[in-house]
C-alpha cells in the first residue's frame, strides 16, 4: 500500500519492541461484541490509473463553466483567476500545513494571514478582520450572535434582499440563542430606510442588509446605518462579491459595524459551492467579541518582528462553553487564495476588474431591457447582477439557453414565489460582448 510504508519485517520489529505477538493484541480493549466480523462492504481498492479514469468519467458527466457561458451568480461568481493563485496559494508548503500553533516554525503562514487580515480591512474599510470563517452565510450567523451579545438585545432584523440561503442559515444558527430573526420586506428591490426605522425597536440588536443585495441592487447604506444607530442597533452588512468593493463605497464609509462576507469571488474556484471563504470584519472596539482565529504581530526574544495566533482567550480551546464561537478549523487556504488574488490584482487591478463587471453588466441589462417583453424589475443602480422580468418563464428560458451551451441566470421563483417571472442575471469580467450579444440574440429568438 503506497501510503503505508511499514513492511512486514518492520511490523514484526515494532511488535517485538511493544511486546505483543500480533497487531490484533493492540485492539483487545475493544469489546468483541462491537468488533466487525468481516471486511467493510466497500468497492475494492482501485489502482491509480483506473481511479483517474473513473474520476475523469465522473467529472465528464458534469458540464463545467469552461464549457458553458455562465450568466449565473447569486452568491457564487465566475471571475477570472490569475495563474499566480494556483502556483502560489496551492503550493504544498501551504496546502499540507496545519494551523500555525508552533509560531516559530510557521512564520510564513502567519504572516500570510496577517496580510490577508490587512487586505480585508483595506477592502471593507473596517479596523480588524479575522483569519476566516466557513462561508458568507455562516459568517453572517456569527455576526448576528456577536451583535446580540454586544448590544445585550435579542432581535435581528434582516432585509429580505439578503441572500435567501444566508437568511436560512442565520435562522438555523441563532435558533437556540434566544435570538429572534425578523424579516424586513422589500421596497422596489431595496431595503427602504423608512421601513427599517419603523421596524427597529429598542430590542433590535442589528439590522442586516446585503449590498449589492441579492437582486444586485445597491442599498442606501448611509440611511440604513443611521436608522440602526438612531435606535442603538448595529448595522451588519453582508457582501457576496467583494470585488464590488473595488468600485463601491466600503461598508466602513457608511458606518457599518460588522461586515460578513463571502470571499469566493477573490480567486477561489466555484467548486460546486465549497470550500468558500467566510469573511468577518468589524470595528476595533468589538475585537474581543470576534469569533475565530486572529494573527497578531509581536517580537521575539531578540526583538525581531514575528507573528502569532493571538487573543485566544476568546476561543473554544481556552474558554470552552463560554467561547465567542465554537469555530476551530477555518478556511485558511481560501484566505490565502484571496490574499494572492488581491496582491496580484493590486490597487489598480481591483478597481479595473470591478469597473469591467459594472460596465458589462450594465450593457447586458440595457440590451435585455430593450427586448420586447423584458424590463428591469428594479430601478436601483446595480453592480454585476440585475433582475429582469421576463415574458417567458425563466425556467423555460434557461432550458432553451442550455441548448446553446449558455448557463442562464437564476429564476427567482425558487426563493421568492411572488417574483416568478424574474430572472437574476450575473455578468462578470469573464463575459465578452460577443457572449452577451449571443445571449440577447437567443432571448430575442425565443419570444
Amino acid at each position, binding site marked *: *500500500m503506497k*501510503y*503505508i510504508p511499514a513492511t512486514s519485517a518492520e511490523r514484526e520489529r515494532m511488535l517485538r519492541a511493544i511486546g505483543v505477538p500480533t497487531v490484533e493484541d493492540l485492539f483487545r480493549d475493544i*469489546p468483541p461484541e462491537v468488533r*466487525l466480523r468481516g471486511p*467493510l*462492504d466497500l468497492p475494492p481498492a482501485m489502482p491509480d490509473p483506473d*481511479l483517474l479514469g473513473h*474520476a*475523469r468519467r*465522473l467529472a465528464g458527466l*458534469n458540464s463545467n463553466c469552461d464549457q458553458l457561458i455562465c450568466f449565473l451568480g447569486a452568491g*457564487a461568481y465566475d471571475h477570472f483567476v490569475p495563474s*499566480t493563485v494556483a502556483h502560489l496559494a496551492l503550493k*504544498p508548503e501551504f*496546502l499540507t*500545513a496545519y494551523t500555525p500553533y*508552533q*509560531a*516559530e*516554525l510557521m*512564520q*510564513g*503562514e502567519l504572516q500570510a*494571514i496577517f496580510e490577508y487580515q*490587512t487586505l480585508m480591512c*483595506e*477592502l471593507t474599510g473596517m*479596523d480588524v478582520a479575522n483569519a476566516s470563517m466557513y462561508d458568507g452565510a455562516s459568517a453572517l450567523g456569527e455576526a448576528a450572535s456577536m451583535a446580540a451579545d454586544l448590544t445585550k438585545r435579542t432581535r435581528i432584523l434582516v432585509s429580505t434582499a439578503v441572500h435567501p*440561503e444566508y437568511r436560512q442559515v442565520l435562522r438555523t*444558527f441563532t*435558533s*437556540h*440563542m434566544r435570538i429572534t430573526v425578523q424579516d424586513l420586506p422589500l421596497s422596489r428591490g431595496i431595503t427602504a430606510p423608512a421601513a427599517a426605522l419603523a421596524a427597529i425597536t429598542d430590542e433590535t440588536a442589528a439590522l442586516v442588509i446585503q449590498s449589492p443585495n441579492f437582486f444586485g441592487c445597491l442599498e442606501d447604506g448611509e440611511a440604513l446605518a443611521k436608522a440602526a444607530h438612531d435606535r442603538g442597533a448595529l448595522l451588519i452588512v453582508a457582501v457576496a462579491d467583494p470585488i464590488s468593493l473595488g468600485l463601491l463605497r466600503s461598508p466602513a464609509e457608511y458606518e457599518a459595524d460588522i461586515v460578513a462576507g463571502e470571499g469566493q469571488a477573490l480567486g477561489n474556484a*466555484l*467548486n*460546486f*459551492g465549497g470550500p*468558500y471563504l467566510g469573511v468577518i470584519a468589524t470595528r476595533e472596539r468589538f475585537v474581543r467579541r470576534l469569533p475565530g482565529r486572529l494573527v497578531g504581530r*509581536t517580537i521575539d526574544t531578540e526583538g*525581531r*518582528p514575528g507573528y502569532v495566533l493571538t*487573543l485566544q482567550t476568546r476561543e*473554544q480551546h481556552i474558554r470552552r462553553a463560554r467561547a465567542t*464561537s*465554537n469555530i476551530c478549523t*477555518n478556511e*485558511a*487556504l481560501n484566505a490565502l487564495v484571496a490574499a494572492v488574488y*488581491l496582491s496580484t490584482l*493590486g490597487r*489598480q487591478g*481591483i478597481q479595473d476588474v470591478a*469597473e469591467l463587471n459594472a460596465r458589462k453588466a*450594465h450593457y447586458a441589462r440595457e440590451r435585455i431591457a430593450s427586448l420586447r417583453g423584458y424590463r428591469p424589475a428594479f430601478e436601483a*443602480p446595480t*453592480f454585476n447582477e440585475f433582475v429582469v422580468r421576463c415574458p417567458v418563464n425563466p425556467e423555460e428560458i434557461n432550458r432553451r439557453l442550455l441548448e446553446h451551451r449558455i448557463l442562464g441566470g437564476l429564476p427567482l421563483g425558487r426563493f421568492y414565489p411572488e417574483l416568478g417571472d424574474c430572472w437574476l442575471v450575473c455578468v462578470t*469580467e469573464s463575459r465578452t460582448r*460577443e457572449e*452577451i450579444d449571443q445571449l440577447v440574440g437567443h432571448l430575442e429568438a425565443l419570444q
Partner: protein
Amino acid sequence: MSAPARRAGSTAAPPLSKRPIPVIFERGAPGRVGYSLPPSDVPEVPLDAIIPASHRRSRPAALPEVSELDVVRHYTALSHRNYSIDEGFYPLGSCTMKYNPKINEDVARQPGFARLHPYQPAELAQGALQVLWELEHDLAEISGMDRVTFQPAAGAHGEMTALLMISRYFEDRGEHRTTVVVPDSAHGTNPASAAIAGFQVVEVKSDRRGNIDLEALKAVLGPQVAALMLTNPNTLGLFEEQIIEVARAVHNVGAQLYLDGANFNAILGITRPGDQGFDVMHFNLHKTFTTPHGGGGPGAGAVGVRAHLVPYLPVPTIERDGQRFAFDYDRPRSIGKIRAFYGNFGNLVRAYTYIRTMGPTGLRQAAETAVLNANYVLSRLRDHYDLPYDRVCKHEFVLSGRRQRDRHHVTTKDMAKRLLDYGFHSPTIYFPLIVEEAIMIEPTETESIQTLDAFIDAMIAIAGEAETNPDLVRGAPYETPVTRLDDVLAARKPVLRWRP
C-alpha cells in the same frame, strides 16, 4: 540532506535565514501592476450613468502595487518559512496529520469538478452528485450510520449541526431536555458547540484507566440530559472499554449518544460507531480521509445519523431515482441550512478519491498501522517521560512532562520548542486538560519506522538535555527564523493588521 540534520545545525548546510520578510505592502512601487485584464469591449458609458458617485468609493483600497514576480517571490519566501506534511513529520495529537495524496489534488482540481456552479441544474452535475451519493454510502458503511450530510465545513460545525438535530428530535417528541454531558477530556469545541445549540454543559470526570467514569456518568444522567458527547478512542488515545455500558446508560434515560469522530482513524474497518451504540457522529474528513489542512482549513465535517434522526438532516439531501441523482429540499422536519449550498465539495471529492484508493482492506490496514506506530513510539518513550495512563493505546497517546518540570524546571512548552530545532513539528501540548504538562503524540500510519525512530531519538535527546542542560531547552528554539515569540505582548497590545 534530511530536514532534522539541516535544522540540527549541521555545518554542511547554511543556517536558515533569520531576516524578516517585508510584508507585501512594503514591496513594489506606486503604479506597478501584476495583472492583465482585457479592455472593456462594451460601448463606453460614463461611470456616473452606471453607478452614481454617491455609491462609489471615495479612495481606492490601499492594496499592494507589485509585479507578478514580486508576488511570486513574496509567497515563495513565505512558503519556505512554513512546516508542512510534505516537508516532515507532524505528530500533532488529535489532528491526524497523515500524508495528503497527490492524486486527490489531481482529481479535485479537474474543471469537471472545480468549475461547477452550485446553482447549475442537477442534470448538468450528475457526476458531482454521484460522487456525493457514493461517498455518503461509503461513510455510512464505514461508520454504521444510516445517512450522512456533508454540509458542515469542519468538525465543530458538524457538532453544532448534530446538536441542533438532537434538539429538534426532542422537540418533536415533546421532551424538554436542557443538558449535554461531556467528559473532562473532551475537545473544547464540544462544550462550545453545546452552548451554541442552547444546552447547558455538565462535565464528567475520567476514571483512573482514562475511561469516562461510568458511575459519575450515571450520577448526572437523567430526563434533562439530551446527549453525551464522547470521543472514542478518547483524547487520551484510549478506547472507551465500557462503551457498551455507557451507551446503555445513556439510552436508558432516553438521551442520545454523540461521537466526536476526530479519532476515527484508529478504528476504520475494526469497529463501527453505529454498532457501538452511537446515534450520531461527525467525521473530520480532513483528518481521517486525507484532505489537506491548508494551514488551518478548509476542512469537511460530515455528520452521520441513525434512522431516527434522518428527518432532521440539513437540506438538501442527495437522492437517487433510478440512474438519476437529485437534491431533495422537501424535508419539513429538517433543521434547515447551516451554510450556503452543499458543503466543502472540493474536499469531499478528495475524501472520495482516498476511499476508492484504499478500499476496505486498505482502510483497515491504515487503522492497524496507525495503532501499531503509536504503540511503537510509546514503547520507546515510556521510560523517558511520565505516562499517566499506562495502557495499550490506539492511534495516539499522552505523555506528561511533569518529571522534567518538577526536577529541572523545564516545561512541556520548552521541550516542544526544542523539538523544532531538531526539525520536527511538536506534538499537541497541554491537551487534554486532565493531564498536567500534556504531550499528545499521534504518528499516523503514513510514517516509516525510520522517521519514527528519528523523532523518538530527538525526544529522548531532549529529555536528556532537560536534565543536563535545562537552560538550553528553556531558551529554544534557536534554528527557526525567529526565536521564542512574545505571546503576552501580542495579546496586550494587539497589532492585527499592517499599517504604513
